[in-house]
């Protein structure tokens, strides 16, 4: 177990190191603090002096170490655009993203397991086929498009009139297919301040209503993935010898499905879940763009537009850190849950 832990931590450090090197390289090559610090009219000679003073001519390694040292203390400099320490800008935007991701994860966990398990137990039922059909469509629609469609349907409203409007039943059917919209689709709405930089959407129903469409959009691409995965794994597990043996022992099907089979199914699902974290980060940026959700994704994109290098770098470092920590945690959970990992440090 210890060996496993150490291996994972080492990997985490390695990845963090790579992220930091890349981030620093970006900062070093693209950023020009001098330009932002002093006005246009300052002559070149003075700039050169300033460069020397600030240690901007030092060799790469030295500058990198300086960067790393500051980074460890969460000091990443000042944002060109906001004029404040980048870390504060990031922290201000972070709660929004975290809440969005949390809501999405909740949705995914709540729905993927029951639907996936059901589709595996009764693979040919019409409901399962429906789920699978919807899943493959869901995977094919890019997340931003789902978001747009959801906005159209639930925020703006659609008027479907395929049926004759002048008949009673026609207009009733038309009405059933149409929506008035009205769901909020821009920004976070009314948030309740909790502490520090953290304001939450979860405190009020109104706040929650702003979370609905973005969370569903973000979940729309990951949910089908997990459903398909759980279904595929479960189908395989249900063919295994130990399930047959459990049946031969006279164990109830319910126990077989939800203990014998499910526990084995979830192991690879956890692994995949870990891998998907990176994808989730990318999709969050897209979703925040569509809904103008003021999280770090939107902040990052704006920073790119504005060439706000320090902010870009800080985003990479902070999000990278969260990413690495989450991945390591998922790996640890896997190590704890999978008994074959316990002693030897790697799967038996």
């Amino acid at each position, binding site marked *: 177990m210890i060996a496993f832990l150490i291996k994972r931590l080492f990997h985490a450090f*390695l990845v963090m190191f790579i992220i930091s090197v890349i981030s620093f390289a970006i900062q070093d090559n*693209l950023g020009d603090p001098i330009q932002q610090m002093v006005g246009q009219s300052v002559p070149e000679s003075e700039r050169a002096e300033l460069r020397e003073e600030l240690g901007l001519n030092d060799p790469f390694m030295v500058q990198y170490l300086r960067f790393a040292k500051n980074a460890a203390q969460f000091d990443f400099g000042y944002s060109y655009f906001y004029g404040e320490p980048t870390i504060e800008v990031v922290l201000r935007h972070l709660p929004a993203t975290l809440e969005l991701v949390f809501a999405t994860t909740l949705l995914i966990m709540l729905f993927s397991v029951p639907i996936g398990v059901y589709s595996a137990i009764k693979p040919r039922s019409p409901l399962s086929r429906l789920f699978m059909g919807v899943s*493959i469509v869901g995977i*094919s629609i*890019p997340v*931003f*498009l789902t978001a747009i469609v959801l906005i*159209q349907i639930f925020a703006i409203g659609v008027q479907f009139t395929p049926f004759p409007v002048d008949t009673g039943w026609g207009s009733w059917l038309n009405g059933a297919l149409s929506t008035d919209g009205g769901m909020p689709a821009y920004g976070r709405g009314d948030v309740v301040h909790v502490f520090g930089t953290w304001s939450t959407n979860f405190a009020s129903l109104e706040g929650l209503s702003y979370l609905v469409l973005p969370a569903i959009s973000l979940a729309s691409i990951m949910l089908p993935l997990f459903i398909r995965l759980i279904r595929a794994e479960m189908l395989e597990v249900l063919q295994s010898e130990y399930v047959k043996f459990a049946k031969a022992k006279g164990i109830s099907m319910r126990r077989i499905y939800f203990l014998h089979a499910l526990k084995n199914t979830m192991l690879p699902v956890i692994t995949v879940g870990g*891998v998907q974290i*990176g994808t989730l980060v990318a999709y969050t940026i897209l979703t925040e763009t569509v809904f103008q959700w003021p999280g770090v994704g939107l902040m990052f994109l704006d920073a790119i537009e504005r060439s706000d290098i320090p902010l870009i770098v800080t985003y990479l470092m902070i999000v990278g850190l969260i990413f690495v920590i989450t991945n390591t945690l998922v790996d640890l959970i896997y190590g704890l849950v999978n008994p074959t990992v316990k002693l030897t440090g790697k799967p038996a």
Partner: protein
Amino acid sequence: MTTASTSSKAPSRLARFRSSYLLYSFKRDWIAQVCFAVFVALVLAAILAPWLSPMNPYDLAQIRILDSELPPFWIDGSDPQYLLGTDAQGRDLLSTILYGARVSLIIGFGAVILQALLGVTFGLLAGYLGGRVDAFLMRMADIQLSFSTLMVAIIVGAVIKASFGGAIYSEYAVFILVLIIGLAEWPQYARTVRASVLAERSKEYVDAARVMGFRAKRIMFRHILPNTLSPIFVISTVQIANAIISEAALSFLGLGMPETQPSLGSLIKSGFDYLQSGSWWITLIPGGVLVVLVLVINLLGDWLRDVMNPRLYKG
């Protein structure tokens, strides 16, 4: 019926294909046929865009600003010459979609070719040479994969845009996008090829080749590679779909094709601003085309994977 003398040559490629299991399953699966037909239709329409589209959306002289935001033909207020309506500048939507699909497909295929070249080469090297080379390449691949290819693409795109500025970015957007997506997704090919190579490496024909004195490069490319083509083929379909989506995502974020030379993604982006005002077609119709394109590719990929894997008994 049969002639007395039979040729002693091996059956031609065409003959082998004709009698192959692939064709056989294809003929029996109507979904695969429909998808393939739709896919071919879209690709052809995109290639023939300059000839098929009613007007050239890049020709400023042809655009009439007064005709902007006209709805598609099945809604009141439309103009018959603009079948699918017009966008905010008065460009015919059908034309822009045809041209847009063209750009999307070019980038999609281009990126996949690049990924395949890179990935297959690295995969062959890693699998065949093993040792440090393998460990290093696979570490890199793992880390890149854990970030998710889209994220890598966004970061690389961001860096390029910040370094060279928006104008140059727009001008060379096609190449830049092919480069970005190609660089971001090579690990998928590398891992697949590596797994195949490892499996093949222990087979006897490799030993035989080595004993005959062939150099590593020749063994890798001429002996092992042909045997790994099947999985490469299978993941290529998914990768094309992914590349098209990635490009659309990047364009939507502003890191992709500019509005002057739009792909489906950037069409969706520019159309999105007009969603609120009710002109939903500007964004949703290109969106629909994108979804259909990706969907048929995904379905074909699923079908291909089922057919090419050993036929496990399905209950």
